[in-house]
């Protein structure tokens, strides 16, 4: 085991980034034309990085497995993006955004990275508005904000419930400008299946054209992985069906350490699952917790009555309801961070108060918000004696303006009208804070290989605050990586084009070919999905919202079994040189299985509760915080960065010690 150097610049935290930018090497414009950069993934991080790098003058090759870069799963982010603009004059500042993010991450993120993130956050909003991103505005024409979980200010910018879509289309438009100029060469429907190293440096990738099935060699002077998170290791998650860990996992197997894989965000407000055929879960934005109140019935008899249909939730009086978040966390109420809200929902449902057939659902109720907004609107309109119906109608209109598309989405899926009856929600896997280990420059442990956005681990610690993923993706891609990568590429101005007719490229291509041929010729009996579902069940039941030693050890054994059986008995129809979605899935699931085992090992090793990682053995036993997560700063204030050894069951751990000079380590209290 070694201790990792994060290369954090010297100096006071507020000057680190500026000083660093002033000191790092630059590449002159004429030389940038001689340098190629590969970007894998075209979401917020990859799209913005590709656009920025091309604009600076580098030759960019961008890859995505979807049919267009605009489809990347950043598109589905709903609620908003944080920035320390303090437009609402509620005392926000760069420091406060930094502080909230470190605290929200349960003191397991790297201070210097988070400060930089907060610092560049304001540029993101300026940038996006200049690009024509249509954020929500007030009647005066200025930008509107709303509040998100875990904070006491309104710093979230939004575009209804489609903020991710609008930001991604902004990055996509910046890419389009460069594609039109020939500075980005776009490879859609291409999947990266391996990294090529030459003399220890990242020098290219092997990609499969998923339409023709051809394997292609692509070279570059640096490779950026911005391929998103690995939530689909749980099979059911709010991720897109194609979201996968493959690019990140392939670089891991070539020497990039993988950090904190067990840090997973289970989002509290998703539509509950309905049946075995279910393919994915749908998120209901956290922004709904601004106006929605979460509750379950106070008495078990009412739970029964609701389940057997003799009572409707709307018939229960205020006294018969348990607004458990408001009860347990009076200071933050319904706006506690995601990990806290998820565990609280699980606690109520485990105690038998779940309100649907599966016993895994709680209510998110908009009745009081509708009434409150209705009254406000009636007052504005001068309707002093508006009827209850009129107030409701006015209120529903206001709520529709704020969350219309989310309510519509809910109604389409569940066939229930959330304006009239409370939504049913339950936690689901949503985001992964863990990822490829990177230093302050976003470089992995492979020289010349970078990781950005959700694919890396650095900014959110053990729990991510709402509306921070979009911020991090764009910060990395627009404002961090384009600078830091120059420091490395300055050493490559005389290298010239990297040839692909070399043994390194040939070997990597042959490895990929052999791997895919093995799937096609396996003659197994079971579908890829059947293994993925089994893996997901083990992960959810034993490596999910609450974890303990016994369960984790069982999970590790079970995942090993699944891995062996998968390679022995998976059946992949079709052939290699054609569009073959089953082959694509097989390759991804194979990586998910290996990652799942590392994930469980990481969770087992971390004998503390922090953020989204809750070890049942490590909870407060008494006092006002009884039952809450108990962190262990003496033994676990570090990043666990895992090295691949060739055997999925024998990873080696390295540590990066986390030091906090600008924030005092405290128990995270939202009471």
């Amino acid at each position: 085991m070694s201790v990792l150097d994060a290369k954090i610049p010297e100096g006071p935290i507020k000057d680190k980034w500026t000083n660093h930018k002033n000191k790092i090497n630059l590449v002159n414009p004429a030389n940038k034309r001689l340098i190629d950069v590969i970007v894998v993934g075209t979401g917020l991080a990859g799209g913005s990085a590709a656009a920025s790098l091309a604009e600076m003058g580098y030759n960019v090759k961008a890859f995505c497995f979807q049919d267009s870069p605009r489809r990347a799963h950043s598109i589905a982010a709903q609620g908003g993006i944080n920035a320390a603009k303090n437009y609402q004059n509620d005392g926000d500042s760069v420091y406060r955004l930094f502080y909230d993010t470190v605290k929200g991450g349960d003191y397991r993120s790297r201070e210097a990275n988070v400060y930089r993130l907060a610092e560049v956050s304001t540029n993101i909003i300026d940038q996006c508005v200049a690009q024509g991103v249509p954020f929500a505005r007030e009647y005066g024409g200025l930008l509107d904000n709303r509040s998100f979980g875990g904070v006491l200010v309104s710093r979230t910018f939004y575009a209804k419930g489609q903020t991710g879509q609008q930001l991604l289309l902004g990055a996509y438009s910046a890419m389009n400008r460069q594609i039109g100029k020939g500075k980005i060469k776009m490879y859609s429907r291409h999947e990266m299946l391996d990294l090529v190293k030459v003399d220890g440096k990242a020098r290219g990738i092997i990609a499969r054209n998923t339409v023709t099935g051809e394997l292609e060699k692509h070279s570059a002077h640096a490779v950026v992985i911005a391929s998103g998170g690995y939530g689909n290791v749980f099979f059911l998650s709010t991720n897109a069906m194609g979201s996968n860990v493959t690019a990140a996992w392939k670089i891991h197997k070539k020497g990039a350490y993988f950090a904190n894989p067990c840090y997973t965000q289970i989002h509290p407000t998703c539509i509950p699952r309905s049946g075995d055929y279910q393919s994915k879960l749908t998120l209901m934005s956290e922004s709904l917790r601004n106006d929605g109140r979460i509750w379950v019935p106070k008495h078990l008899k009412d739970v029964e009555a609701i389940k057997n249909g003799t009572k409707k939730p709307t018939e229960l009086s205020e006294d018969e309801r348990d607004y458990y978040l408001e009860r347990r966390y009076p200071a933050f109420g319904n706006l506690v961070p995601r990990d806290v809200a998820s565990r609280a929902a699980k606690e109520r449902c485990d105690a038998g108060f779940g309100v649907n057939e599966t016993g895994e659902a709680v209510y998110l109720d908009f009745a009081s918000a509708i009434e409150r907004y209705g009254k406000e609107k009636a007052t504005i309109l001068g309707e002093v004696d508006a009827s209850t119906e009129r107030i409701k109608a006015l209120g529903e209109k206001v709520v529709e303006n704020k969350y219309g598309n989310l309510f519509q989405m809910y109604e389409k899926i569940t066939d229930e009208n959330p304006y009239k009856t409370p939504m049913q929600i339950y936690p689901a896997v949503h985001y992964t804070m863990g990822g490829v280990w990177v230093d302050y420059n976003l470089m992995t442990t492979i020289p010349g290989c970078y990781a950005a956005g959700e694919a890396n681990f650095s900014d959110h610690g053990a729990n991510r605050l709402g509306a921070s993923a979009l911020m991090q993706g764009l910060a990395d891609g627009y404002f961090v990586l384009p600078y830091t990568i120059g420091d490395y590429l300055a050493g490559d101005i005389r290298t010239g084009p990297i040839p692909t007719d070399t043994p390194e490229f040939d070997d990597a291509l042959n490895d990929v070919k052999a791997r895919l041929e093995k799937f096609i010729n396996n003659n197994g009996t079971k579908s890829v999905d059947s293994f993925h579902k089994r893996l997901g069940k083990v992960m959810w039941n034993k490596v999910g919202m609450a974890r303990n030693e016994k369960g984790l050890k069982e999970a590790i054994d079970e995942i090993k079994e699944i891995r062996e059986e998968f390679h022995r008995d998976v059946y992949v129809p079709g052939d290699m040189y054609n569009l073959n979605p089953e082959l694509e899935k097989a390759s991804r699931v194979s990586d998910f299985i290996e990652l799942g085992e590392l994930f469980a090992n990481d969770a087992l090793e971390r004998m503390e509760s922090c953020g989204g990682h809750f070890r049942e053995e490590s909870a407060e036993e008494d006092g006002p915080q009884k039952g809450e997560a108990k962190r262990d700063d003496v033994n676990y204030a570090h990043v666990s960065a895992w090295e691949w050894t060739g055997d999925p069951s024998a990873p080696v751990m390295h540590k990066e010690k986390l030091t906090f000079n600008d924030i005092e380590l405290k128990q995270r209290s939202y009471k």
Partner: protein
Amino acid sequence: MKLTLKIWRQKNATDKGAIKTYTLDNVSEHMSFLEMMDVLNEQLITEGKEEPIAFDHDCREGICGMCSMHINGEPHGPDRGVTTCQLHMRKFNDGDTIYIEPFRAKGFPVVKDLVVDRSAFDRIQHAGGFISVPTSGNTQDANATPVPKADADKAFDAATCIGCGACVASCKNASAMLFVSAKVSQFSLLPQGKVEAKRRVLNMVEQMDKEGFGNCTNTGACSVECPKGISLENIARMNREYLKATISGE
């Protein structure tokens, strides 16, 4: 529910293709249409006789725009305001026969089965679907230019287009005007986009024509079938912008 499915099968871009019939039992009304397709594919894989049916899909929550399919003659099926992934089987009845085909248009060649190539949409965007601003972040403060709420809202409504191509698939002329006009409108309504408005509309329309999409004859089918309800007003706005640009020049 028990269903009869008549599905377009085509091995690759050059294959002729044909409709094949499948039957599926025990379909739950709570399933999404794509989950029903998953179950059918699982059945085909288990039988091992023929390849599962290829179809595009990704987010499965109606926002990525990847899923397509012509279902009983309508892009994204019989429901309104949804993509195929948001269409639920409760919109069908036990014993129904459902026809499932790829989007049909000259600009969208079939890749395999129900998968089509929509890269023409990307190329139209390359021609002008952007504001030429560097990504330095050193632009003016986001609140320096107020934007009237009504304009911002209209720009947003246009910007919600997911680029799925249902407008083209529903149009008898296979016109891409709704798609192109949504982007043109978004930028022409915002002060930031006005500077390049003329060039943008001329270039995007030129590329649209090159890709082989037809013209608009105002039947309005596109707007009805659009999962995001993009309004025909956008086409009118684009026509105004185009006329202005051709008359006044640079």
